[in-house]
C-alpha cells in the first residue's frame, strides 16, 4: 500500500480543483473554514456570486488587515468587502434563498460522507457542545452539494463510508466529493470515481475508502497546481 503523505492534495489544491467546476454566474455558498478557500481560485472568466447566510450576496474578498468593518462579515465572522452588485437582506430572506433552492452550489467540509449522499459534518456525537449553524439548511436545499475533505481521517480511517456513524447533517444530499485523493460523484447511492491523483493505484484508493468505489467511463488524472497561496 502506497504512502499517501506526499501524494495527497493540500487543502488549497482541493479548493482549487473544486473552483474549476463552478460556472460563471453561479450562486455559491462556501462553508466556514477550508471551503472558503474556493473563492481564491476562481478561473479567469468564471465569476461566481457568493452568498453568506448572514445576509450578504455578491460580496468581495477579505479586506486588508486593519481595514475590517465588523458589521460587514461572512458566516465565519471574517471580514469581507463590498463590490458593485452587493446586496444586504435579513436572515429570513437569506434562508429563503437557501431553502428555496436558489443556490446553485454549497461547498462544505465533512466528518463523513456516505455512498448514498448522507453527510455528517456538525457533531462528532462524542459529547461536547453541539453547533449546527446553517449547514442543515444548506445541505437539503442547494442544487448541488460539494464536499471538500481529506480522503481519510488523521488516524487513517475512511471518511467516505457505506453509512455514516456520526450524527447526520442531511440525508442523501451530497452530489460530489473533492477529496485529497480523488473527485468522486455520488450517483444512485454509489461512489463513482471521476478523477484520482495519478500516483495512487485504484486498489489503494479503494483500500482507503469505506465503501465500494465504482467507475463509469475513464478515471482521469487529478492534477492541481503546486504552489497555491
Amino acid at each position, binding site marked *: 500500500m502506497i504512502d499517501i503523505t506526499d501524494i495527497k492534495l493540500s487543502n488549497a489544491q482541493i479548493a482549487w480543483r473544486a473552483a474549476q467546476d463552478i460556472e460563471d*454566474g453561479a450562486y455559491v455558498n462556501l462553508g466556514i473554514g477550508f471551503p472558503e478557500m474556493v473563492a481564491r481560485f476562481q478561473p479567469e472568466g468564471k465569476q461566481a456570486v457568493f452568498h453568506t447566510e448572514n445576509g450578504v450576496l455578491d460580496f468581495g474578498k477579505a479586506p486588508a488587515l486593519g481595514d475590517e468593518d465588523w458589521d460587514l462579515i461572512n458566516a465565519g465572522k471574517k471580514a469581507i468587502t463590498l463590490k458593485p452588485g452587493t*446586496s444586504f437582506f435579513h436572515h*429570513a430572506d437569506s434562508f429563503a434563498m437557501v431553502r428555496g433552492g436558489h443556490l446553485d452550489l454549497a461547498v462544505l467540509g465533512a466528518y463523513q460522507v456516505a455512498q448514498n449522499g448522507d453527510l455528517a459534518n456538525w457533531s462528532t456525537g462524542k459529547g461536547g457542545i453541539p453547533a449546527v449553524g446553517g449547514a442543515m439548511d444548506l445541505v437539503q436545499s442547494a442544487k448541488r452539494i460539494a464536499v471538500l475533505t481529506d480522503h481519510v481521517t488523521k488516524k487513517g480511517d475512511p471518511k467516505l463510508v457505506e453509512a455514516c456513524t456520526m450524527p447526520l447533517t442531511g440525508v442523501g444530499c451530497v452530489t460530489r466529493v473533492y477529496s485529497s485523493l480523488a473527485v468522486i460523484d455520488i450517483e444512485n447511492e454509489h461512489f463513482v470515481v471521476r478523477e484520482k491523483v495519478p500516483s495512487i493505484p485504484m486498489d489503494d484508493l479503494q483500500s482507503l475508502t469505506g465503501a465500494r468505489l465504482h467507475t463509469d467511463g475513464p478515471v482521469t488524472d487529478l492534477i492541481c497546481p503546486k504552489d497555491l497561496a
Partner: protein
Amino acid sequence: MDKTIQTPAEAVAAIPDGATVMIGGFGGSGAPIELIHALIDHGAKHLTVVNNNAGNGHVGLAALIEQGRVDKLICSFPRSADPSVFVDCYTAGKIALEIVPQGTLAERIRAGGAGIPAFYTPTAFGTEVAEGKPIAEFDGRSYVQERWLKADVALIKGALGDAHGNMTYRMAARNFNPLMATAATTTIAQVSNIVPLGGIDPEHVITPGIFVDHLVEVANPAQEEELNRAEAVYP
C-alpha cells in the same frame, strides 16, 4: 454575467403554452404592462395566471384574458372598475377561477420562493374557502394548512435594475412583485432604468439579483390606470 435583454419580445419568447405565469401588481400599480403585451404578441396560450386581480379594462391582464390565453386564474379579488372582460369569460365558462385570500396568496407565493411546502394560517378557518383543506390546532386555536405556490415564469415590474438582477420598486408598486420574483423558475423583470452594477445602494436593494433571470429596460412604462382612463385597448 449580464442578465439584461434588449426587448420585451425577446424576454418572453421562451414562455411555452400551458405555463403557470405569476404577474406582479395590485390593480394597475406594479403591473408589467409591456411584458404582458409582449406575451400577448408572443402567443402562448392555455396559461394559468397568478395575480391579485383579474384585470381592468382592455389592456394588460384583461387583454391577455380577452385574447383567450388564460385557462385559469388564481387571484384574491377579481373586481375592478371595469372587470367586464373577466366577467364575460368567467360567465361563459371559458376561464377557471381559484379564489385565495390576499394574505394567503402572498404567503403561498413567499412559501414557494422560500422552500416551505406548507404552512398554517388562521385565515379562512371556518369559511367555505377552507373547505377540503387540512385543519390543525395549535395552542388551542384552529388553523388551515395552505400549500406553497410556484410558477414557471414570473413577470414583474421594478424601478431600477442592474445587470446582476438587483432591483428596486416604486412606492406601492412593490406589492407582489418581490414575492413572485422568488417563486418562479424563470423571473423576467421590466425596469424603468437599468443602472450600472453598483448603481443601487446595497442597503436599498429590495430584490437581490439571485431571484431575477432576465431584465429588460422599459423607460416610461405604461400605467394601467392611465391607459384605462384613456380607454386604451390592446392589441
